[in-house]
């Protein structure tokens, strides 16, 4: 606790505080602009953090994450277009409330719910990350290998598209890490004698390409490029009584706590992310409500559920990253990359060996929430013109920043080519229904899986240890369960869809 307090004081130091504010504001602006996701915003801020000390860089990124998770609600409430996938469910009640003549209430309910939900998730973050890291200290290479397999199987199973495509995406990501020198003997493999491939593909340009370029090209597909009229008028009144808004949120303790827990849990699960958290929390709020029919008409319950869950999701993602070195989602994947660039390996030893940074991250997380409220309130004054920037101006500028982000990693043009190659691959994957999250996780975990497997076999050639060591065996069993459950769930859904199709066909014939 003392360490947390001391680091909190250190963060108030001007340089650090300014970075946190800048990151939070960048997150809010990026989150508010439809088409710019939090992942994209964090990718764009990445090159700025290269020259900073690790904690300052992380403070900027956590600011982006917290700000971005709340920024999406501005366009969701005022335009009816979610700024980020994390704010999809906010649109359902936020926009109708704004159109009823209460845009201020709608936006501020979202902002305060984000702040409260996010701050509540901070406590499990501090306790959970430390406890899970302690548990992970007992892990040997067998357990790590099984943990990574479990992570991959969960991610592939949870992907919305087909299971086999999720698995192909994961294995393809693992295969990408096999290109270049092997981690044990540094012998080049799968390079076709090409010097460009000798060192393998760096992770960050792959990540920027797969998420950044594919997102921009997918946006360009949609004709128009300008946002629709809001119907709010220029003089929309944003003034509210903050005390009344906070009271309104605390008047729904069950909704608030449940949504926070949903967000936290989804965040802990690798690579699911805020987009699933807000919809699931909204769904749970609707199911648990005494008046479910009112959802979608502009009631506060929906906004509170969606916004508290998407900010709690940030805390959950950070737990997984800090305790196991596994990214909870694409945003924490970028943070993980940034830590590795600074020579810090996140994992179970991270909290103990890099305590000032780990506790600094906790402190930054708590501090980012009130800062987000202040900055988002300030940004609201000129939010509408900014969020309505046309896509044809925005996308080339974003692409240039992505190029700089890839290039600045080690100042070589090959990284930009990697960005282009994987960006094109990412776009093709989106078009052919392959999920993107598993390939990124595969790229992150590939080296770790190989290294831990070799370590395990070199320590003891008995391969049954993977199954007989309790944690390792349990995780492998869970991998199989997650896989079989997903298969069963999809079959059931397909059967139901098939029955519906038959009904439709029957109707036509009849």
């Amino acid at each position: 606790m003392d360490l947390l307090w001391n680091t909190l004081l250190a963060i108030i130091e001007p340089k650090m505080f300014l970075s946190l504010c800048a990151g939070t504001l960048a997150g809010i602006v990026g989150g508010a602009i439809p088409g710019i996701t939090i992942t994209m915003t964090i990718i764009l801020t990445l090159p700025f953090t290269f020259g900073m000390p690790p904690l300052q860089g992380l403070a900027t990124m956590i600011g982006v994450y917290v700000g971005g998770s709340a920024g999406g609600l501005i366009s969701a409430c005022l335009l009816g277009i979610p700024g980020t996938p994390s704010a999809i469910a906010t649109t359902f009640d936020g926009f109708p409330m704004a159109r009823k003549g209460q845009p201020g209430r709608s936006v501020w309910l979202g902002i305060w719910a984000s702040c409260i939900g996010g701050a509540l998730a901070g406590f499990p973050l501090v306790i959970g990350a430390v406890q899970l890291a302690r548990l992970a200290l007992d892990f040997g290479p067998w357990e790590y290998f099984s943990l990574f397999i479990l992570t991959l199987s969960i991610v592939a199973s949870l992907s919305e598209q087909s299971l086999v495509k999720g698995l192909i995406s994961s294995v393809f990501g693992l295969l990408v890490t096999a290109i270049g020198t092997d981690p044990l003997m540094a012998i080049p493999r799968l390079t076709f004698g090409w010097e460009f491939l000798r060192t393998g593909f760096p992770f960050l340009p792959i990540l920027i390409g797969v998420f950044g370029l594919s997102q921009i090209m997918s946006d360009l597909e949609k004709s128009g490029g300008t946002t629709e009229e809001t119907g709010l008028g220029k003089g929309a009144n944003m003034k509210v009584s903050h005390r009344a808004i906070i009271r309104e949120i605390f008047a729904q303790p069950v909704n608030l706590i449940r949504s926070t827990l949903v967000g936290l849990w989804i965040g802990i699960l690798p690579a699911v992310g805020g987009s699933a958290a807000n919809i699931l929390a909204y769904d749970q709020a609707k199911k648990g409500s005494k008046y479910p029919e009112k959802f979608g008409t502009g009631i506060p319950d929906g906004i509170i559920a969606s916004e508290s869950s998407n900010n709690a999701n940030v805390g959950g993602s950070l737990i997984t990253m800090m305790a196991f070195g596994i990214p909870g989602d694409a945003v924490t994947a970028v943070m993980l990359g940034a830590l590795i660039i600074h020579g810090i390996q996140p994992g179970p030893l991270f909290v103990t060996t890099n305590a000032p940074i780990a506790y600094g991250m906790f402190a930054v997380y708590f501090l980012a929430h009130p800062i987000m409220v202040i900055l988002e309130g300030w940004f609201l004054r000129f939010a509408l013109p900014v969020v309505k920037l046309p896509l044809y101006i925005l996308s080339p500028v974003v692409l240039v920043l992505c190029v700089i982000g890839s290039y600045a990693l080690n100042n070589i043009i090959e990284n930009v080519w990697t960005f282009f190659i994987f960006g094109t691959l990412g776009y093709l994957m989106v078009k052919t229904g392959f999920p993107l999250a598993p390939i990124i996780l595969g790229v992150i975990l590939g080296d770790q899986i190989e290294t831990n497997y070799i370590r395990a076999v070199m320590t003891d050639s008995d391969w049954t240890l993977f199954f007989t060591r309790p944690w390792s065996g349990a995780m492998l069993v869970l991998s199989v369960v997650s896989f079989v459950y997903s298969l069963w769930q999809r079959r059931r859904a397909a059967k139901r869809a098939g029955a519906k199709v038959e009904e439709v066909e029957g109707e036509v014939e009849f």
Partner: protein
Amino acid sequence: MRRDTAIGIGLLVLCAVLYWQAGLVPVPPFIPIGPSFYPRVMLIFLAGLAVWLIVEDLFKKRSPAGEAKKAKGPAPNYRRVLWGFSIFLGYVACLDLIGFVTSTFLFILGLSWAVGPRNAREVPKLAAVAAGTALACYLLFEKYLYVFLPRGLLF
């Protein structure tokens, strides 16, 4: 040929080529697992999944209701995407040749014109955005953050 079947066949070919390539890696003595072991295991998995994809695609029922639903959405504008990829490819190729500032200016102006409303009155605005972004990036990254952006024949 169905799309997923074609992807599956493409993946099988890729697996075969990479499996052969992995076999060319020298095996060091005294190491129980050589450098080609991991890629080969992954390739076997990938090939198995590719077969699964093909089989799933061949036995998949086509839903007429689903097709009708698909047709209802707005048609994607692939011409914009093609412009986007072509101009971006040109930009990446030009970065080292003519330098960051010039190529960035040309890229932003070209892409925003190609995917925008193509109105002659917009050109000064687009040129201002292009020049502003190129110069701001140069000053911020080169002068402040010491990231040495690509230099070419121009600037």
